[in-house]
């Protein structure tokens, strides 16, 4: 089977640009969540958010500005025959917001496909782009699609670009669902009370590799499932997520004990985190180090999996799993799993786990220098 290598990965986050910077700040337990200054939050359950520094009202959407930052950092050079897959939940939703607020139209240019087309053109990619959306597992689903297209020989090189931003559209919805923590999100904490909205963007270039390099990073497994249970709440017993995790581990040719750490979804909502830890306990015989990024940069929606992947790569490079941010009193069920401080782990395999609206569950296996 063709090894699928991560040739390039980069992120723009509320804690800075670049995977090394982001990992370093997460390892320091830095928190980017503060008062949301982008729009009036006085009617909402919370006024907290994690915003990317440097985003301004300059006529371009937040997503477009984040992609500009990423493109500039890369120098806009990707192989011309690279297939772009854009992953998001609502993407450039400000176009729709502005259209409704200003002229009552349906917001031309606000579809995910129009964003993908603009990005492909700006990066001078020749092939028509694809869009993948799977709620908060969108980036993970896009990475899986890229893996499949490369393995079956349809593509040699796939760029997954994902981005979602803090918008009035999404903020008002989560506020109405009573899903926002009034303070900063506290994933896996006993007193957690909801999520915090965040934003980020990322690029990951996946390519067919001719051989496996010792220091290379590869996507070796994936698993997906749905709960078929409820539109917003996860299955209480975690069985759907457990199935996705078990499938991912098995498809990578591994046993659960071979997984060195978990980059968890960890939203900070009571039900998600409880379901997630139940799923891990179903699959793993012994606790596995696990962290969430959402206490640091909030829930970045469709982009969440790409941030977790970036930190997982850096954790392997640095042989250290970062702490889970926002913890003050670890939930009893998560004790022994969630990392309260950095943990030295010489790791070869990591799980990247996401879950989303509609009961969507996903798991990817990241491996260093090893393929099936």
């Amino acid at each position, binding site marked *: 089977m063709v090894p699928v290598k991560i040739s390039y990965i980069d992120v723009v986050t509320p804690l800075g640009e670049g995977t090394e910077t982001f990992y370093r700040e997460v390892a320091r337990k830095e928190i980017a969540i503060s008062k949301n200054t982008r729009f*009036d939050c006085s*009617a909402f359950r919370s006024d907290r958010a994690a915003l990317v520094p440097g985003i301004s009202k300059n006529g371009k959407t937040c997503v477009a500005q984040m992609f500009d930052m990423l493109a500039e950092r890369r120098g806009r050079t990707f192989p011309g025959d690279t297939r772009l897959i854009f992953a998001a*939940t*609502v993407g450039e*939703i400000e176009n*729709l*917001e502005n259209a*409704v*607020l200003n002229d*009552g139209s*349906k*917001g031309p240019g*606000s*579809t*995910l*496909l129009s964003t*993908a*087309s603009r990005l492909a053109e700006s990066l001078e990619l020749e092939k*028509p*782009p*694809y*869009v*993948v*959306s*799977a*709620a908060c597992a969108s980036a993970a*689903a896009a990475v899986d*699609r890229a893996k*499949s*297209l490369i393995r*079956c020989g*349809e593509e040699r090189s796939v760029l997954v670009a994902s981005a979602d931003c803090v918008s*009035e*559209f999404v903020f*008002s*919805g*989560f*506020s*109405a*669902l009573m899903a926002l923590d009034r303070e900063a999100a506290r994933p896996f904490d006993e007193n957690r009370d909801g999520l915090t909205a965040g934003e980020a963007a990322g690029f990951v270039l996946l390519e067919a590799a001719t051989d496996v390099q010792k220091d290379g990073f590869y996507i070796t497994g*994936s*698993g*997906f*499932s*749905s*709960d*078929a*249970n*409820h*539109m*917003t709440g996860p299955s209480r017993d975690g069985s*759907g997520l457990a*199935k996705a995790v078990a*499938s991912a581990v098995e*498809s990578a040719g591994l046993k659960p004990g071979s997984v060195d750490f978990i980059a968890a979804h960890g939203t900070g909502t009571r039900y998600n985190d409880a379901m997630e830890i139940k799923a891990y306990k179903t699959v793993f015989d012994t606790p596995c180090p696990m962290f969430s990024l959402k206490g640091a940069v909030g829930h970045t929606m469709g982009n969440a999996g790409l941030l977790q992947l970036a930190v997982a790569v850096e954790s392997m490079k640095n042989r250290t799993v970062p702490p889970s941010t926002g913890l003050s009193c670890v939930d009893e069920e998560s004790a022994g799993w969630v990392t309260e401080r950095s943990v030295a782990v010489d790791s070869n395999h990591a799980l990247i786990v996401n879950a*989303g*609206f*509609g*009961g*969507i569950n996903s798991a990817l296996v990241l491996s260093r220098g090893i393929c099936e």
Partner: protein
Amino acid sequence: MNNPVACITLDVQSDAESLIRRYRSLRDDGTIRRPVKNFTRFDDTGKAIFLAAFELFNHTGSLPRDPSATAILAVDRDGALMNNTAYFENYVQNGRTMGSPNDFIYTLPTSVCAELGIYYGLRGQLLYMSSAEDDLYGFGVGQARTLVSEPHHRAVLLFVNDSDTIQAAFITPQFGAKHES
């Protein structure tokens, strides 16, 4: 290989009222045995996708044999644009203080897939895709083929909405196409 086992085409130029009438008619004749929760809340595409699913399963005469390994893939060009617009218009009309949680849950392109999964108990992957390719149905079938080539999926329920037409197909790793209409 991996040709659609079954494929149906549904014209969806009809308005919401026509789709609801069609749903009620299928309820009355017993094709739809259980009511679909929130059917009237779905946008026209969502309503049409549900109707296409009923027609598809009516056509094949059975539901997927392995619901836990059946994925749902929705493909179109607009995503949830209609529902997104409706949600935000409603929020603005209400003074930008409170969104409708019941409308918000349908603002994702995978929302209707999730409702289908809940209704039929299908627990495979839920996925939305779009492409600028001219042949959107061919694109959808191609993506579905790669999904069933993975070991954890045995079938894909595919819905492609393009040019006011929904094409629904049931794709398995088996060879051959039958029941096409």
